[in-house]
């Protein structure tokens, strides 16, 4: 499959909210307090208020469900979500981001599918997001 870089996205998170064991698994919420994103076609900051709803599944993997708002350096707001899988045993953290925006300049985001290659760094999660061509 062909892809091209869309952005490098960094999140700042605050203390985890442990919901605990639910019928689907152990649920933890990682609040997003900020961050930044940078790519050839867009750059800006992550607004506080989003988060990643993470469920620890019975097979040892984590199911990710993230919602955040991105603000570009020229003032457009972009609603971003992803689902994904984190499998620490296999060093695998991959996501499927989707975007929604009303800003005409960034409407191309409404029409694409993407894949994120994630990594947990000491300063927070980093996702290299590629557009699927």
């Amino acid at each position: 499959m062909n892809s091209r870089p869309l952005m490098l996205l960094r999140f700042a998170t605050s203390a985890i909210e442990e919901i605990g064991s639910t019928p689907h698994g152990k649920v933890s919420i990682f609040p997003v307090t900020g961050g930044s994103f940078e790519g050839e076609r867009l750059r800006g900051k992550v607004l506080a208020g989003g988060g990643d709803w993470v469920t620890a599944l019975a097979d040892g993997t984590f199911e990710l469900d993230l919602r955040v708002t991105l603000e570009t350096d020229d003032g457009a707001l972009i609603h971003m979500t992803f689902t994904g899988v984190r499998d620490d045993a296999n060093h695998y953290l991959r996501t499927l981001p989707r975007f929604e925006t009303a800003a005409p300049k960034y409407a191309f985001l409404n029409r694409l599918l993407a894949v994120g290659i994630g990594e947990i760094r000491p300063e927070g999660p980093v996702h290299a997001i590629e557009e699927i061509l």
Partner: protein
Amino acid sequence: MNTRLLMMMHVNVATPQNIGAVPHGTRRTAPLSGGDFEGPRLRGTLLPGGSADWLLLRADGVLEMDLRVTLRTDDGALISMKSFGLRHGPPEVMAAIGRGETVDPATYYFRTTPRFETAHPAYTFLNRLVAVASGDRRAEGPIYTIHEVL
């Protein structure tokens, strides 16, 4: 991004159910009457019972696809597959597809992101991966080339 071929999947579409204009767009459900899949690590058929593609044509002309199918491998495992996808392209190309013509899949965007769930030990690797697929809409139904994201 590194990927490797997971499977090719042929899907047969039955008569669509036109739900019509709904608050999010124009909704249509395409039940699937069958199909098959084949790749280096799995092959089998698609079960018609719980398999369909829930389609929503948005105001910006993009078709959102919400495919849910049950796969049965040649050794009897059941695999649930769900994939969200987008399809769009030049109006004349989309019109030709609508008329059931075969068009070059390079002339439009038809991509999906499959996820899998299975309880069968031989295929649990599918639970742990995300995939991307490119589609080729033929008159009888789409052909998907599905790649595992490495």
